[in-house]
Each structure stands twice: as C-alpha cells, then as structure tokens.
C-alpha cells in the first residue's frame, strides 16, 4: 500500500522522535515495528487523513505486511519512505493556509456576531491550525457532518494540488 507520512523537516517523527531513513535517489531502508496503534508500528496516512496531521514535510511511504486502518491513520508492520513530496513547500503551505482562512471567514459570515472572533487567526498560524479552524466553524454552524465534510474538502484540495496518487 502507498500512503503518506508527515515528519519534521529533518525526517524525524513528530511524536515518536524516530529518525526515519530518508530516500536519497532510492527508497529509504525498511523500518519494522510491531503493530500497536498509537504506540508502535509504522503509522501512516491516507490522503483523507492528511488535513489532521499537516506538518513541515511530507513523504510518500510504502507499507508492507498486515495493515490496520484505525481512526485517522493506518498502521503497518513495516514501511519505507519512497520520496519526499516536494510540492509540499512553503508556497503550498501558504496557499493551503490561505484557502482555509478564507473558507473560515466565508462560513463565519453566516453568523458574524458569534463567529467572527474565531477567524482572527493569523495566516502564520500554519496549515494545521487553520484547517482545524475551518472545520470547527463548519461544525459549529451545521454540526459534526459539516465539520467532517470540510476536512474532506481540504483533503481533496491537498490531493489535487500535491498530485497525490498521480
């Protein structure tokens, strides 16, 4: 299975602190781990999961062995990084952040007295926070399904602009 991995700029896991073997013209080395969701195993993302986990760098990862799809991620017994998704760069992060804050303002306009204070977030707050702000405003107006739909829309934006799976 091909999936995605969000890492720090130097290839370190954001929560695990694990330093991934990086691809360098060829795939990185395989990494093995026993599956225990959120604790061990190789954690990766489907395109639909990406908006929840955006960070400094994005890699395509090949997963092998039994794979569990759990919540907002997949967990496998082994994986290796295939390539850095170079399109996830500063201009793209800014474009995504801009899209999210504009969407949040558009949604907030339906109830400005209550929601305008929510969209004071600065564009520098970054894509992860601004994606969340848009989701929460949609959820506040129309309920959890609208929040989920907002995240799905963000995932489509990312897949299209980063040409994921192409």
């Amino acid at each position, binding site marked *: 299975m091909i999936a995605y991995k969000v890492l720090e700029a130097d290839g370190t896991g954001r929560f695990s602190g694990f330093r991934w073997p990086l691809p360098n013209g060829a795939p990185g080395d395989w990494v093995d781990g026993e599956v225990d969701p*959120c*604790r061990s195993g190789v954690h990766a993302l489907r395109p639909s999961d990406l908006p929840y986990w955006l960070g400094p760098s994005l890699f395509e990862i090949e997963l092998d062995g039994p794979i569990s799809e759990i*919540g*907002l991620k997949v967990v496998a017994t082994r994986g290796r990084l295939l390539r850095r998704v170079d399109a996830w760069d500063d201009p793209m992060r800014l474009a995504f952040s801009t899209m999210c804050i504009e969407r949040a303002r558009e949604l907030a306009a339906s109830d400005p007295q209550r929601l305008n204070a929510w969209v004071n977030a600065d564009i520098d707050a970054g894509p992860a926070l601004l994606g969340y702000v848009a989701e*929460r405003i949609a*959820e506040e107006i129309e309920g*959890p399904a609208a929040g989920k739909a907002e995240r799905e829309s963000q995932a489509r934006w990312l897949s299209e602009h980063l040409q994921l799976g192409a």
Partner: protein
Amino acid sequence: MPSDGTEKGFTCREVVELATEYVDGAMSAEDHELFEVHLNYCDGCVAFIEQVRTASRLSRRINESELSPDLREKLLAAFRDWKRE
C-alpha cells in the same frame, strides 16, 4: 472519546488535565489519537507537554529518602492545596 462526549477533539484545558495520562502512555488508542491531533496544531500545548515530560523524567530520579523533611512537607502541602483548587 474526549471527556465531553463529543467528537470535537480535545480542548487545551482537557490537554492540561490529561497530560500525565498521555505522557505515561495510559490513554486509550482513540483518545491518544485525538490528543495528538490537538498537539499537531497547538504549539502552546506541545510546550506544556514537554514541561510535563521533563518534570516526570526528573521526578523519577529523586528518591523520597533524598528529600529533606522540610522540602517533603512543602511538597505535600502544595499537592494538598492543588487538589483543593
């Protein structure tokens, strides 16, 4: 599921309340995921969790017998006051 019973994820206040549970690895997989979704966009909570981790690491290096009676009493008083707040 977050403690408020919704699917909204954790608030900063809930992250503070559950920080030790997270650092000790005592959370359910579902809560653990929602907790980290919050940390992924909230730098303030990331900094707080780092402080809790550091405090947890340091406290494991101290034996009760190494504490002076005076410091031991001050710590117990602080914990008692904290629970009352």
